């Protein structure tokens, strides 16, 4: 048995030491600090934002560890989590944001499982033989023994074009005594009009996700590819920020805050309508 153990150890060691082959083999190229600085995963963005890992990312800090959510470390981390090359977020706004997030009295953290953040995915789908851009919004929800990402909303231009409710004189209607005629004039709404949505309530909003799934089940929509992914965060009180991935030379790369907005009353709803493109 000893011979077997020895043989296996020799085999494993000889593979480990094969020059320039696997991870951490002799001859591995050295990172000049750029990859270490990069916020490599969204997970790392969460950890850095909350100061839940060491500076080099090799050690995860947990509640009880000396540096877990350390205010000074958080300050250093958050200051490198902004896109400093293209986004033009003013230093004053960053300072105000950091002041609130790092408050000594009531510091604020982001949480993977909590509501208030979601993904926006730009994708391509084939629709009736044509490649079409589709925007999907996904959110995290508890399911079974864990969590899952689910599609919450969809924006699809061909659907938006279909539903355009006429206004003013152009809008058809069912007159207020239609009931006395047993709604016989519904024929006009459904047969003679090409805008049946004119006969819906003011608050009517088409459910694009249901339509999208229906068309997919009918075989009219087929997935093609993913173009881009970004994230929207509303977890910090009275603040919104957008998270984008920056793949470029230098040290300010990876998942970074690309947009920062201080929210006043009502701004969140307006912003959400804008993001969902369902104004």
């Amino acid at each position, binding site marked *: 048995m000893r011979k077997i153990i020895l043989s296996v150890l020799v085999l494993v060691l000889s593979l480990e030491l094969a020059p320039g082959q696997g991870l951490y083999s002799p001859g591995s190229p050295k990172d000049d600090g750029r990859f270490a600085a990069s916020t490599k995963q969204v997970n790392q963005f969460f950890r850095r934002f909350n100061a839940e890992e060491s500076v080099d990312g090799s050690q995860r800090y947990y509640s009880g560890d000396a540096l877990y959510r350390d205010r000074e470390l958080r300050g250093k981390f958050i200051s490198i989590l902004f896109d400093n090359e293209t986004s033009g977020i003013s230093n004053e706004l960053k300072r105000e944001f950091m002041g609130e997030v790092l408050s000594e009295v009531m510091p604020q953290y982001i949480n993977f499982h909590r509501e208030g953040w979601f993904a926006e995915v730009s994708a391509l789908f084939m629709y009736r033989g044509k490649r079409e851009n589709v925007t999907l919004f996904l959110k995290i929800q508890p399911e079974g023994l864990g969590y899952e990402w689910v599609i919450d909303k969809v924006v699809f231009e061909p659907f938006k074009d279909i539903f355009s409710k006429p206004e003013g004189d152009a809008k058809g209607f069912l007159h207020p005594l239609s009931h006395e005629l047993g709604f016989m004039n519904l024929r006009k709404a459904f047969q003679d009009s090409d805008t049946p949505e004119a006969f819906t309530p003011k608050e009517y909003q088409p459910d694009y996700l249901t339509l999208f799934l229906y068309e997919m089940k009918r075989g009219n929509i087929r997935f093609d590819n993913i173009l*881009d992914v970004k994230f929207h965060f509303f977890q910090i009180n009275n603040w919104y920020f957008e998270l984008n991935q920056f793949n470029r030379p230098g040290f300010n790369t990876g998942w970074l805050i690309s947009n920062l907005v201080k929210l006043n009353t009502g701004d969140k709803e307006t912003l959400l309508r804008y993001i969902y493109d369902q104004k």
Partner: protein
Amino acid sequence: MKKYLPLFLLLFFATTAVSVAQSDNISPARKQAIDSLALEKVKDLSKYISIIGSKETQFSEANRVMDRAEELFAPGAEMGVSSLNRKEIAYYKVRRYFERLMALNYDRVNITWYDIHYISDLERQPDGRYVGVVTVYQRFEGTSLESGLNYRDTTKKDITIYVEKKQTQIAGRTIEFWDVMLGDIRVTETSA
């Protein structure tokens, strides 16, 4: 001796893992042990990719290594590859990706891995398995002797890992251990 090797390895992994695997919750210490195991699998994969890509590797040997590499993956795993010029993802089954790597038209290929990695937290899926992502960086250098052209790129590889508690019987005893399988890999060319 060869026939004892798998049994030995199974015993080795089971006994080293059993001390850290007793419940469904993953404590920090257990997470660290799982990270080490995951990193071992990623190291194996990186080694296999370097061997498959190397022009000095014989065809039969490359095929044997591809078999070994495939064993690291959960069924149905895919590689999603994009470049700086092409944002769209090209999807390949793992085997197909290896075959394409082997067939690259260079006289000399050198694949090395940067001395850095990042391991995410583990999140539980609806089916109870845990999932995480390990990020590593690879440098590829291909040389064509005839044209004298050199191609070089650096890619970021985000590797899915699935972590599952399993049981095995050894000498009449039931031993629980955490197993790690690799899943889908996102390959992105970087500007480095």
